């Protein structure tokens, strides 16, 4: 597990900064909660919308925007927090093989007695662990900082765990796609591109298809839908928000490793 440990060590300083960034986002979001909680007008506006449109705001199933689960789900879990985690996952995933090959640093490491498959797998695992720590850091900071703002009212541990688990698997899937793009091409660019298409396309499609009330099976083709379609904070653990993304992530990882094993280095 030398490569795992080394990858982890190389990235732990950056992880600290990212964690700090996520804590700041949590704080800013929490600070504004009291103003929303006390104003009912915005909530009434949302309640007047047709159900599909409300669903795009994560307001389906009668969750109020001024409640803690409604507010946090919209302001954190279906916006900036998710976006940043996905960015972290994509940047990290594309660099695992593609980035280090592009920099030229991969070759000398592979002059050592280690197989390419093992190197790639250890790096993927290291990123998965780093991402887990980042999510954990965000969760802990929310848990510690929210009570003074009454921002956890109506959210139980299961709901919180479900939301962060969904977030984690969604980001992990993007990391896997970015890794595959990099591992297959030997460059960062294709990794960024592939995963960004999934992120931007998936997010936009989720909103549009939900608003258009598209058939369920069409919406269910989209990993962003798996995560966003119910307010996990309010309704708690959902297998479909975690398991499919986790299983699907195996596919790009396997494809990336298989291609990287045998191809020419750049």
């Amino acid at each position, binding site marked *: 597990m*030398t*490569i795992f440990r*080394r990858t982890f060590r*190389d990235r732990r300083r950056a992880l600290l900064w990212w964690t700090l960034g996520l804590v700041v986002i949590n704080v800013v979001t929490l600070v504004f909660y009291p103003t929303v909680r006390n104003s009912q007008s915005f909530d009434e506006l949302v309640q007047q919308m047709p159900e599909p449109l409300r669903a795009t705001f994560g307001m389906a199933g009668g969750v109020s925007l001024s409640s803690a689960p409604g507010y946090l789900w919209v302001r954190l879990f279906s916006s900036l927090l998710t976006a940043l985690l996905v960015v972290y996952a994509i940047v990290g995933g594309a660099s695992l093989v593609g980035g280090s090959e592009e*920099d*030229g*640093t991969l*070759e*000398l*490491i*592979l*002059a*050592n*007695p*280690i*197989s390419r498959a*093992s190197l790639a797998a250890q790096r993927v695992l290291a990123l998965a662990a780093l991402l887990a720590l980042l999510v954990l850091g965000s969760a802990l900071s929310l848990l510690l900082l929210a009570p003074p703002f009454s921002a956890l009212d109506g959210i139980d541990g299961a709901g919180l765990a479900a939301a962060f688990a969904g977030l984690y698997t969604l980001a992990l899937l993007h990391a896997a796609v970015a890794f595959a793009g990099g591992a297959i091409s030997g460059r960062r660019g294709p990794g960024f591109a592939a995963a960004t298409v999934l992120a931007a396309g998936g997010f936009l499609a989720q909103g549009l298809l939900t608003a258009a009330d598209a058939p369920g099976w069409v919406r269910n083709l989209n990993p962003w839908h798996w995560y966003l379609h119910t307010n996990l904070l309010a309704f708690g653990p959902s297998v479909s928000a975690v398991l499919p993304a986790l299983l699907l992530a195996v596919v790009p990882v396997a494809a990336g490793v298989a291609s990287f094993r*045998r*191809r*020419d*280095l750049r």
Partner: protein
Amino acid sequence: MTAAAAPGAPAMPLPIEARGLTKSFGRLTAVDSLDLAVHPGEVFGFLGPNGAGKTTTIRLLLGFINPSAGTCTLFGRSGWEPGARRRVGYLPAELAIDRRYTASDVIEFFGELRGGYDRQFTRDLLDRFALDPSRPLGDLSTGNRRKVGIVQAFMHRPDLLILDEPTSGLDPLLQQEFHRLVREEASRGATVFLSSHVLPEVEALASRVAILRKGRLVTVASIAELRRRARQRIDLFTATPPPRGLFETLPGVRQVTYHDGGVQLLVEGSVDPVVKAAAGLTVERIHTPGQDLEDLFLEYYQEAAP
């Protein structure tokens, strides 16, 4: 030309063996039907001008790229197998290591990947090359970064050292130190594959040399053999002008030029006939200008491959 092993399968797998090794990049054939056999314990020079395919050959050996045709092995196993690389130390032409790593990081990291290394020897290497192991590579000078490359290649006392233009960027003193290191490791029994485009280095270290040109092997020969093949220039200063026709017909004499003080001869192979013939003259001074082997190399570099 080939440098295949002696007839009959060798009892021990060779440190490096290539048969018909070919690598094409699109329409460019960077390495073309290469046959190589590097024997245990020898220092093997791999010479060729820029772009001849030296680095490409090394990348094929280490399994970084796939051959388009042919095979190559390290100790009888493909470079793709991690196990084959366990006994190898590789010094790349350009050291690309994460700039944040210190030399200590590199030693620890690679040492772990190789399942251990010779700690005392590595400490001595750091001393020898006056390398501060605690500074990040990004802060080091070109030469110092080169030293990190040397230390990581030698630190686990590998059976085979693959060195790609090892002394580029090193000052003459360090080059000397490096040459000493290579000789020590060779005398310990390590095999050294030394790629270079400078002759003096290879001449100083190698026992055998392969010359590569445009991906093709031009020749494989011992340095002694190359010296025999090299033409020598001999300037004879005589008391009286030498008689015309004395040297022209001698075996090996390629060129005769008369000048004020005597005669200049260009001789291929043994100079014995020339010396015997000159014995009848009153020779006041003998001068052998130029680097003979250098001339030969330039010829190999330039001429079309035979």
